[in-house]
């Protein structure tokens, strides 16, 4: 009986603990899967259609549908990373490239959330992104007026 109790307690503890994020692995995965186009500091190459992540990526979290978009964008959703690694890397990218806009109440992505979100295939990528950027701009304008 005490052994069973110990096993149940150990299992409970394992599930309760958040997954230990491996910063180094996140950075290496960014290098191997994203950096080629998004460049080492996330600034991208806007004149050739590679959007900048730097000081901007976190703004998506503040509009409806933006949190989903960061995972559903084809480069992320269709990457060969598993959901745990994709969650870890996206969290690392947000805190590294846009620390300012994620500092307030940033909810880290979990592997389960990423797994759920990436099931949805985003077809109209450019349109969805343009709509989200509109929302972001409108939100910024409203904040400026306040």
């Amino acid at each position: 009986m005490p052994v069973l109790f110990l096993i149940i307690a150990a299992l409970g503890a394992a599930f309760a603990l958040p997954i230990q994020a491996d910063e180094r692995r996140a950075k290496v995965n960014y290098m191997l899967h994203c950096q080629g186009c998004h460049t080492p500091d996330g600034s991208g190459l806007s004149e050739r259609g590679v959007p900048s992540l730097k000081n901007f990526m976190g703004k998506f979290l503040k509009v409806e549908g933006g949190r989903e978009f960061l995972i559903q964008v084809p480069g992320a959703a269709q990457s060969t990373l598993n959901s745990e690694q994709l969650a870890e890397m996206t969290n690392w990218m947000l805190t590294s490239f846009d620390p300012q806009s994620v500092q307030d109440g940033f909810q880290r992505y979990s592997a389960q959330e990423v797994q759920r979100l990436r099931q949805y295939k985003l077809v109209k990528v450019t349109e969805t992104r343009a709509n989200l950027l509109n929302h972001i701009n409108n939100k910024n304008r409203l904040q400026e007026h306040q």
Partner: protein
Amino acid sequence: MLFKWFDKLTENTTRQSARLTSRRSFLASVGTVLVGTAAYPLLPVWRNGAQAASQAGADPKEVSPGQDPGDPESCEYWRYCAIDGYLCSCCGGTKTSCPPGTQMAPITWIGTCRNPADGKDYIISYNDCCGKSACGRCQCIRNENDTPAYLPANSNNINWCSGGPADVVYNCSTAIILGIQ
């Protein structure tokens, strides 16, 4: 009186100038300026203007591996495990730098190669050099871990020069170490 003096001065200066210089020498000077101006952009110099236009700016910095065995002019060299193109080492550049007159594309594809000296997997950035016609020397096609074009981040069949500020003309490829996997 004053006009007469001025006429004399002009006449003397013109005659002296005509004695000292010939029409041929004048034409030669003008010709030199014209040809020189036209030829200047063709010189193999780093195009600062094009570089300034690049948002990404600086080329990637190499992280030095402890040991680096092999010949960078040979396709068998360990860090070329996933390259597809002409080796810049044979084209007037080096394994990490572009030949004169070309510019490194700021966007690229990145893979890993195992260093036989220490058995570790290194992250390699295969930046293309662009702006001059294909080098044509030391063609090296090794496609380890290459992915199809629909997974573009790890595909070496893409002309990465098309994403650069120079232009789409591909010259050769480098292999720059970014870190250890």
